[in-house]
Each structure stands twice: as structure tokens, then as C-alpha cells.
């Protein structure tokens, strides 16, 4: 009996250990192939060259254009998602009738559940043509349209995490504010948002991290042309889109082009890891401020 209990506990712990192996596996794979990559490409070139053309005859391995593409689309996404998502959170938390809350929340859940390839289709076939009627010079592939659509995708993430943060602010603060005669607007922006700021910051950092890693929307609608620019109207490529591009082609395994996706993946991993660590720190440090 005791023996059986021990064996079961061991098996359960083993299942947990698989998650650790996953992390070790990711680190090992990225490090190993990236080191091989830097055996052939100079690390200085990687961080300073302004062109990324591994698939052309004249090969350049400068990661900057992919980083600029990733940052640009993510920035546009946050620019769309933050004001809208935060407004929704404030509205649901402070203004909305409980009935409204119960209707809006499932809709947000649906928005979050839609596969990203579907968002990509939407960006390419609906948003881009529409934007072209407003912005005459807009290329068929650009950073603006996938950025906006990515923003729509991220709204539920920001609104639900921010709402949780606002909800966690002690009732006494809210009541004190109303007691002094403040409006809902004043209470929300002068009391609740400052009090919940760490939670809101966490939601924004997680949203940026999510946008950095988003793949299909940009692979479909941004154009797969690495370009060092912050102009949202021209075709660009992101780190993720480049990895997709190489995976779709017939690049031989083990070649330099093949290894380049690991170096690019390493950059993406480092960026998202830093963002996730910061958000975890902020959360740990400030979340239980009022408990």
C-alpha cells in the first residue's frame, strides 16, 4: 500500500518534470544552433548590419530589420489595444450594468479564441483594402493593417487583466472617493487606475510579449520583406514571419539559412523572456499591496 502510494507520487512528479525538460530543451536547442550559426556569421554583423537577406545570393545577416518589423507591428497593436482595452475594463468595472458585463465578457472570450490565421485573412482581405481607400500610398502588404488587427486580437487580454486589477482595488478606496462626491470618471482615473497601476502595467507588458510572438497575422499580411524602417505603409517582416518563411521553403536542414531561424528564434525568446520576467516581478512586488 505504502509502496503503491510512493510509486504514484513518483509518476506524478515525473509528469511535472516534463515541463522542466521542455524549458531545458528550448534553451539547449536555441543555444546550440545559435552557437553554430555564430561560428559562420560574425556576431557584430548580426547586430549592426542593416540588411537581412539570408535567402538571396548576396547574403546579409543583420537582425535589425526583423527587430524593427517586430517592434513596429507590436507598437501599432498596443497603440490600438491599450486605450480600447483599458476603457472597456474601466467601463465594465465602474459603469456597466451587471447584465452588460455578462454579455460583453463572452464576446471578448470569443475574440480571444479565434485562430490567428483567421485574423490574418481578415487583415489581408478586409482591413488592408479598407485602409487603402483612406491612405492612398499604402502598399498591399504593410505593417499598419496586421498591427491594427493584432491590436484587436489583444484587446481581450488587456481588458480582462486590467479589469481584474481594477476589481482588486479595495472597496473602501472607491467608497471614500464617491463619498467625497467624485464622479465615476474621477474615481476611475484619479483613484482606481493609480491604485491598480501595477496590474495594468502587467497586462500591457504581457500584451507586448504576446504581440512580439504573434506569427500568422504578420506572416500573411505584412509582406515578408525585411526592411529597416518605422514606416507602417511599406512591406516589412518580423522575426516570427521570417521563421515561417524559411520553414515553408525548401531550405536544406543544417544549412546556414536553416540555422538562421534558430538565431532569430533566440532573439525572440530573449525578448519575450525579459518581458515576462519583468511582468512577473511587477506582479509579485505590487499585487498584494492592499491585502
Amino acid at each position, binding site marked *: 500500500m505504502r509502496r503503491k502510494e510512493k510509486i504514484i507520487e513518483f509518476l506524478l512528479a515525473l509528469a*511535472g518534470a516534463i*515541463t522542466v525538460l521542455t524549458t531545458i530543451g528550448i534553451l539547449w536547442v536555441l543555444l546550440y544552433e545559435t552557437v553554430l550559426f555564430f561560428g559562420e556569421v560574425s556576431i557584430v554583423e548580426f547586430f549592426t548590419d542593416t540588411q537581412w537577406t539570408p535567402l538571396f545570393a548576396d547574403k546579409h545577416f543583420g537582425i535589425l530589420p526583423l527587430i524593427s518589423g517586430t517592434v513596429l507591428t507590436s507598437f501599432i497593436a498596443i497603440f490600438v489595444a491599450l486605450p480600447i482595452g483599458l476603457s*472597456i475594463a474601466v467601463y465594465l468595472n465602474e459603469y456597466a450594468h451587471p447584465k452588460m458585463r455578462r454579455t460583453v465578457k463572452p464576446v471578448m472570450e470569443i475574440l480571444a479564441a479565434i485562430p490567428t490565421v483567421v485574423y490574418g485573412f481578415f487583415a489581408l482581405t478586409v482591413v488592408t483594402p479598407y485602409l487603402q481607400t483612406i491612405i492612398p500610398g499604402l502598399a498591399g502588404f504593410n505593417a499598419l493593417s496586421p498591427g491594427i488587427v493584432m491590436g484587436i486580437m489583444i484587446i481581450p487580454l488587456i481588458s480582462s487583466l486590467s479589469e481584474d486589477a481594477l476589481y482588486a482595488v479595495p472597496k473602501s478606496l472607491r467608497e471614500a472617493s464617491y463619498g467625497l462626491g467624485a464622479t465615476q470618471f474621477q474615481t476611475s482615473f484619479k483613484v482606481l487606475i493609480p491604485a491598480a497601476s501595477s496590474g495594468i502595467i502587467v497586462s500591457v507588458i504581457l500584451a507586448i510579449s504576446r504581440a512580439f510572438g504573434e506569427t500568422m497575422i504578420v506572416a*500573411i499580411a505584412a509582406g515578408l520583406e525585411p526592411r529597416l524602417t518605422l514606416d507602417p505603409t511599406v512591406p516589412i517582416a518580423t522575426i516570427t514571419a521570417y521563421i515561417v518563411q524559411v520553414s515553408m521553403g525548401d531550405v536544406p536542414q543544417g544549412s546556414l539559412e536553416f540555422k538562421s531561424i534558430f538565431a532569430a528564434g533566440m532573439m525572440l525568446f530573449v525578448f519575450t523572456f525579459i518581458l515576462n520576467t519583468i511582468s512577473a516581478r511587477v506582479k509579485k512586488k505590487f499585487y498584494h499591496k492592499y491585502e
Partner: protein
Amino acid sequence: MNNRLKNNLFKYWAIACTLFGIIMLGVFIINILIDGLGRLDWNFITDLPSRKAENAGIFTAVMGTLWILGLTAIISIPVGVAAGIYLEEYGKKSRFANMLEINITNLAGIPSIIYGILGLEVFVRTAGLGSSLISGALTLSLLILPVIIVATREAIKAVPKTISEASYALGASKWQTISEQILPAAGGGIVTGVILALSRAAGETAPLIVVGALTYVPFAPQTPMDQYSVLPMQIFNWISRPEKEFGVNAAAAIIVLLLITFIMNGIAIYLRNRWQKKVKW
């Protein structure tokens, strides 16, 4: 007065923001229905792929998606639920459990395409499984494992302590308590989490592209070692083509994919609500 005006202005802006999400979802779905509904018929689902848009069907892609979902479920559910039980019931204060917890939080934040890179190196190349269904399913299993673990823990946490204490008082062992009392009580929550995780796996494209899912397979896969395509891959391929007819095909295939996603989410939400109502301690 000025303050009330501001208050009202913000209220209307916030309502507009809230409606924006709902309207976008509406525009989205209506647009896809207009594009794709005319193309969607039984033949579209049962036909093999073709170079001609009007003959092409999604049969092989749907079969690939079903295979991937089945295999991913078989691999990820036992591992994820077991790990969740361990963290919640056994390793509460141990160092190992603490490390696992931090690790799982980190894993949940890693972009899905990185999992693809892991799968490519470990399953496709090192383990020699090639671009097979099993490579894809293993990759997706690792991807959704954190979701299943977190859901399992939440569900177990919701079971009142009195239940397990009563069980221990009657002389039941730890595992007897878990398997006979806690798991049945937490079952609804776990199933809900698992379905949501699998619905995410059904829509994933990026990691499967990296581990070599194909955009064109002439026949439906027969064994886990076969090459395959999945619905999102087929959609991606059709979107990438310049001809308008393929865009129509993509929209029709998206309707099928959204139906699968919504049905899975619907079942999960239904189970969650039912369970919440039924179980009153």
C-alpha cells in the same frame, strides 16, 4: 457641471470601445460568411485537395486536424492532469514544486513558434520522427501542457478541504482520496480546461509550419507516422495564393475552422456553467 460632462463623455467613449469589439467580431464573421458560405457544401468537405480551386476540398486537412487533436489529447491530458495533481496535492512546499511553478508560468509566455523550433530539433530531427503527425502532436502537447496544468490546479483548488479531510478521517490513503473524491469533484473544471486547450491546438498554425506540416497532401493520413496537413495550414496556403477563387476557398475553410473552435468553446463554457450550478457543497 464640467465634471459631469467629462464623466458622460467618457462613458460614451467607453461604450463605443466596448461596442467596437462586438462590432469587429460581427464584421469579421459576416464578411467571412459572405465570402465563403456560397462555396461551402458537402463536396467541399469530402473532396481531396486540387490545383483547381473549384475542385479543391478540405478532406485531407480536416482528417489531419482530427488526427492531430486526437493524438495531442492522448499525450497531453494524462501528463498535464498528473502534473497538476502533483503540484496541487503533493509538492505544496517542496523546492522542486516551487521551481515547477515558476517554470510553468514562464512556459505559458513563450511564443508558440518557439515550441515549433523545439519540436523541429527534438522530434523531427533528433528523434527521427520526421514531419509526421506524431511530431506535430508532441509539439502541440508541450505547447498546451501549461494550460491543462493550470486548469487542473484551479479545479482541484475549488474542491473544499472538508471533502479530503472527511476522506482521510475515514482512513483513506492519499491516492484513494485523490482518485475517489477530489478528481470526481474537480472533473468538470478539468474537462473544461482540457477542451479549451485542445481548441487552441486546433487553431495553431505557426508551430506546425515549423515542424513541417504540409500545405498539400494527396491523401488523408492513415497512421501517426504519416505526413499531414491541418485546416489552418490549408487556409494559410489558400490565403497566400493570388487567385481570387482560392480566397473564396479560404473563407469557406475558415467557416469550418471557426465552427470547430466555437463548438469546442461552447461545450467548455456549457460544462463550466453546468458544473458550477450542480456542485453545491
